[in-house]
C-alpha cells in the first residue's frame, strides 16, 4: 500500500476517524492493528518476518533488561561485602551473560536480513569466482525482500543495544513493543526511530488537537505533492536517459546527476514528510530525517543533514563501538608511530572505511552501493586530511570565508560532489557509471540543451516547466525553514494554511504523475 495511493488515503481516513472516536486508552491498540493491516498488504509472509523480529527482540530485551536489573540490584545489595575487584569481576561476568543474549538476537535478526537481502548477491559473486576456476555454479536463491526490513530491523536492534547498555528499561508489553517496530507511517522508508524518542508519544493517549492535526495534514500534503509532481515526473526522463547509456552521454550525464539529485530529494523527503505528517495527525512525534541537506558546505555536514537517523544509527551502534573495540585500540597503539606519525590516524581511517562499507551495503546488495559507500568514506577522509591546507588557504585570504559567494561555492561543490557519487545508484553498474562520468570530459556537446533533445525523453516542455516550478517551490520552502520550521508558522496563519492545502490538493490532482498513461513509481527508499 503505497503512501501515494487511493487505498492508503482510504485506510488513513478510516483509521483517523476511529482513532479519535474510541476510548483513548485503546488508541495504541488501534494503531497496532492498523499497522499490521497496512503491512499485510505487502504480503502475508512479510508479517512472519516482522513478527519474528518483534517477538525475538522483545524477548531478548526483556531478558537483557531483567538481567541488568537483577545484576544492579545484587550489586546494590552486596556493595559493602564486595571488594572493588570482586565488583568488577561480577560486572564483567554479568555483562557477558547479557551480551550472549543480545548477540543471539542480533545474529538471528541481522542473519534474517543478510539471508533475504544479501544471499543472492553473495552466491552470484561466488559463482563468478567458481566460473573462473571452471567449477559449476551454485543455485542463486530467489528470496522476496520483505518491505522495509532494513528499517525495522535496524530500529529493533537499536532498541536492544540501548537496553543492553542500560539506556532505558525494556518495554514490558509485547503489543506496545510490536507497535514500535511496525508503526505504519515509518515502516516503508524510515526514519529509523529510537525507542526513547518515539515511545512517549506513540503510547500516549491523544485527544483531538486541531493545530497538530492541521500541521500534520499540511506536511503530508506537501510530501505527497513533492512525490507526485516532481519526483515521479523526473523519473520519466531519468528512465529514458539510463536505459540508453550509449546514446545519452556527456551533457546528458550531467543532467542525470542533477535530475537524480532533485528526484531523490523530492521522493525521499516527500515520503518522510508524509510519515511525519501522518504520525503528527495521530499525535505521534517522529524524528526529523532531513535538515535542508543541499545547503551543506561539505560532505561530512551533508551526511549530518541527509537521512539523519540512518547516519546517527551507524555512528552510535557501529562507528563508536568499533572505535573503542579492543582490536582497533590495539591497532592504534601499534600503528601510531608508523610512517612518521601517519599511522596514528590509521584506526580512524579503518573505522571510517568500514562504516561506509556497511552503510553502502545497507542500501543494497550490489557493487554499486558498496563502491558508493566507500567513495563517500574516501571523500570524507580526504576532506578531513586536507583541513590544514584549507586553514592555510583561509589564513592567506581571511575575508573570503564569510562571503556569500564563497558559501555558495561550497554548497555547489558539495551538491555536485555528492551527485557525482550518487550517480552510481542510477546506473547500478560500476564500470558503466565511471564510463558515463568520463564522457562528460570526452563527449561534451552542450547543444543538446537547446536543440530539443530533452523533449524526446518522454516528457513535454510543459512537464519540464512543472518540474522546474516544483523544484523552485521546494527550494522556497527550504529557504523559509532556515531560521525556524515552516509548518508551525504556517499553521498559526489559519487562512494561509487552508489556502496552501487547497492549492496543494488541486495542483497535485492535476499535475501529479499517476493513473493510466504513467508508470506509478514506488518510493525509491522502499527497496532498502
Amino acid at each position, binding site marked *: 500500500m503505497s503512501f501515494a495511493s487511493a487505498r492508503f488515503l482510504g485506510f488513513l481516513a478510516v483509521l483517523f476517524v476511529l482513532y479519535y472516536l474510541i476510548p483513548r486508552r485503546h488508541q495504541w491498540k488501534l494503531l497496532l492493528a492498523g499497522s499490521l493491516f497496512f503491512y499485510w498488504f505487502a504480503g502475508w509472509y512479510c508479517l512472519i518476518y516482522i513478527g519474528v523480529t518483534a517477538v525475538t527482540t522483545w524477548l531478548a530485551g526483556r531478558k537483557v533488561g531483567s538481567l541488568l536489573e537483577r545484576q544492579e540490584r545484587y550489586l546494590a545489595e552486596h556493595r559493602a561485602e564486595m571488594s572493588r575487584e570482586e565488583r568488577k569481576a561480577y560486572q564483567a561476568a554479568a555483562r557477558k551473560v547479557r551480551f550472549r543474549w543480545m548477540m543471539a538476537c542480533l545474529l538471528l535478526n541481522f542473519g534474517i536480513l543478510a539471508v533475504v537481502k544479501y544471499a543472492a548477491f553473495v552466491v552470484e559473486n561466488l559463482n563468478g569466482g567458481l566460473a573462473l576456476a571452471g567449477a559449476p555454479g551454485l543455485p542463486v536463491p530467489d528470496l522476496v525482500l520483505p518491505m522495509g526490513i532494513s528499517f525495522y530491523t535496524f530500529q529493533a536492534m537499536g532498541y536492544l543495544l540501548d537496553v543492553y547498555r542500560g539506556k532505558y528499561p525494556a518495554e514490558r508489553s509485547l503489543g506496545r513493543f510490536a507497535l514500535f517496530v511496525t508503526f505504519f507511517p515509518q515502516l516503508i522508508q524510515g526514519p529509523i526511530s529510537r525507542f526513547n524518542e518515539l515511545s512517549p508519544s506513540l503510547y500516549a493517549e491523544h485527544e483531538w488537537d486541531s493545530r497538530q492535526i492541521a500541521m500534520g495534514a499540511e506536511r503530508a500534503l506537501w510530501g505527497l505533492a513533492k512525490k507526485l509532481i516532481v519526483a515521479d515526473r523526473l523519473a520519466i526522463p531519468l528512465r529514458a536517459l539510463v536505459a540508453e547509456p550509449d546514446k545519452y552521454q556527456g551533457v546528458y550525464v550531467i543532467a542525470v546527476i542533477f535530475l537524480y539529485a532533485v528526484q531523490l530529494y523530492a521522493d525521499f523527503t516527500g515520503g518522510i514528510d508524509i510519515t511525519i505528517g501522518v504520525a503528527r495527525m495521530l499525535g505521534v512525534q517522529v524524528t526529523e530525517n532531513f535538515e535542508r541537506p543541499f545547503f551543506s558546505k561539505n560532505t561530512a555536514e551533508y551526511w549530518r543533514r541527509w537521512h539523519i537517523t540512518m547516519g546517527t544509527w551507524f555512528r552510535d551502534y557501529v562507528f563508536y563501538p568499533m572505535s573503542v573495540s579492543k582490536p582497533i585500540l590495539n591497532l592504534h597503539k601499534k600503528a601510531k608511530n608508523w610512517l612518521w606519525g601517519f599511522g596514528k590516524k590509521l584506526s580512524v581511517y579503518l573505522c571510517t572505511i568500514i562504516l561506509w562499507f556497511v552503510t553502502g551495503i545497507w542500501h543494497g546488495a550490489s557493487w554499486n552501493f558498496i563502491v558508493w559507500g566507500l567513495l563517500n568514506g574516501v571523500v570524507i577522509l580526504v576532506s578531513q586530511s586536507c583541513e590544514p591546507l584549507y586553514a592555510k588557504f583561509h589564513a592567506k585570504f581571511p575575508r573570503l570565508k564569510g562571503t556569500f559567494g564563497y558559501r555558495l561555492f561550497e554548497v555547489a561543490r558539495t551538491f555536485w560532489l555528492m551527485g557525482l557519487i550518487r550517480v552510481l545508484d542510477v546506473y547500478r553498474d560500476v564500470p558503466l557509471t565511471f564510463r558515463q562520468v568520463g564522457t562528460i570530459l570526452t563527449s561534451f556537446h552542450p547543444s543538446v540543451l537547446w536543440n530539443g533533445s530533452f523533449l524526446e525523453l518522454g516528457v513535454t516542455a510543459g512537464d519540464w516547466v512543472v518540474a522546474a516550478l516544483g523544484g523552485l517551490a521546494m527550494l522556497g520552502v527550504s529557504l523559509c525553514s532556515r531560521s525556524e520550521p515552516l509548518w508551525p508558522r504556517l499553521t498559526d496563519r489559519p487562512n494561509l494554511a487552508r489556502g496552501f492545502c*487547497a492549492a496543494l490538493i*488541486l495542483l497535485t*490532482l492535476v499535475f501529479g504523475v499517476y*493513473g*493510466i498513461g504513467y508508470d506509478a513509481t514506488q518510493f525509491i527508499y522502499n527497496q532498502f
Partner: protein
Amino acid sequence: MKTKKKSAVLATLAWILAVAAGLWLLTGLLTPKYMTDIQEGALIAEYYKEKTDHDVVFIGDCEVYENFSPDVLWREYGVTSYIRGSAQQLIWQSYYLLEETLKYETPKVVVFNVLSMKYDEPQSEPYNRMTLDGMRLSPAKIGSIRASMTEEEDMLSYLFPLLRYHSRWGELTGEDVTYWFRRDIVSDSGYLMNVGTRPAENVPEGAPLADYRFSDVCWDYLDRMAELCAEHGVQFVLVKAPSLYPYWYDQWEEQIEDYAAEKGLPYLNFLELIDETGLDFDTDTYDNGLHLNLYGAEKLSRWFGAWLAENTPVEDRREQPDYAEIWNEKSAVYAARQARLEAERDAA
C-alpha cells in the same frame, strides 16, 4: 472562544467548498469533449437530452450507430427510435445500457446487434471510457464499469474522472474551453452521420479460428437481455448489421440462428439481405465496407422500417402532434447536418 471556534469551522467549510468547486471546474475543463473529433465519445450522454420516449431502441456498437437512421424510420414510417450505441460497445455494456434505458422508458422493440458476441473480456480502456463516461451515475453504470474494467483501470477514476483525465492539462485546446459547461448534439437520435464514400474492395476473408464457440459470458448477457425485455413486455430483435468487416463467420451465424430459433426471437442477418435492402458497397460505405455511409444507412433503415411496421407492434405517430413537433424538428436538424456535411465534402 466559542465564536472563534465557530468561525474557524466556517472558514474550513468555506475552503472545503472552494476545493470542491475547483475540482468540479477542473473536471469539466479536462474531461474530453468529443465535439469535433472522435464524436462517438459523445453519443451515450446525448440520450439524456431526449424529450420523448421511443418505440424502438437500438443497442450495440458502431454497427448500429453508423448503419441505422432513426430519421428515415420517422419520416417514412412514423416510428420513433433511438440508438444507444458506442464504439466497440461490449455485450455487458449493452446489457447495462438496456437496463438503464428501461428505467427511463419502455419501448415496444429493442434491436440488438450481435457482433459484440465475439468479445468475452474487457478490450480497451479508451473504448470503455467512451461508453461508460457518458452514462449517468446509477447502479447500471457501476455494474457496467465493474464488468468492463481492464487490469489497469479502477472504479475511482470513473467516479471522479479528473483522476483519469488530469494529464490532459498539456493537451487542452479551444474546444475544451468552448465546451467547458455545455455540449452540442453531434448525433441524430444516436445516429452518427457520415457522407463520405470509399468503396469496399478486396474485403479479406476471415482467418480460421481455433474455436468458433461464443463464450458463456456472452450467452449469459444475451440471455439476460432477452429476459429483461420479456419482463418489460418488449419485443427483442437480433440483427447482424451489413458490415463486411470484422468478418462474420458461418459458425457464428449458425449459433445465433439456433439461439434465436430456440428462444423464438426474430433474427435478421443483413449480410444475407444485401439485394433486398438495395445496398451497393461501391457507393454506400465510407470506409471500405466496415460501416455504411448516410446513403447506405438510409437504404437499410427504409427496408428495416417496413419490416418493423409489419412484424412488430410499432405505431405510426406522424399524426400525433406531440411527437410530430419534436420529430419534425429533429428531421430539420438532420437535413441541415446532411447539407453541411455534403457541402464540406464537396468543398474538400
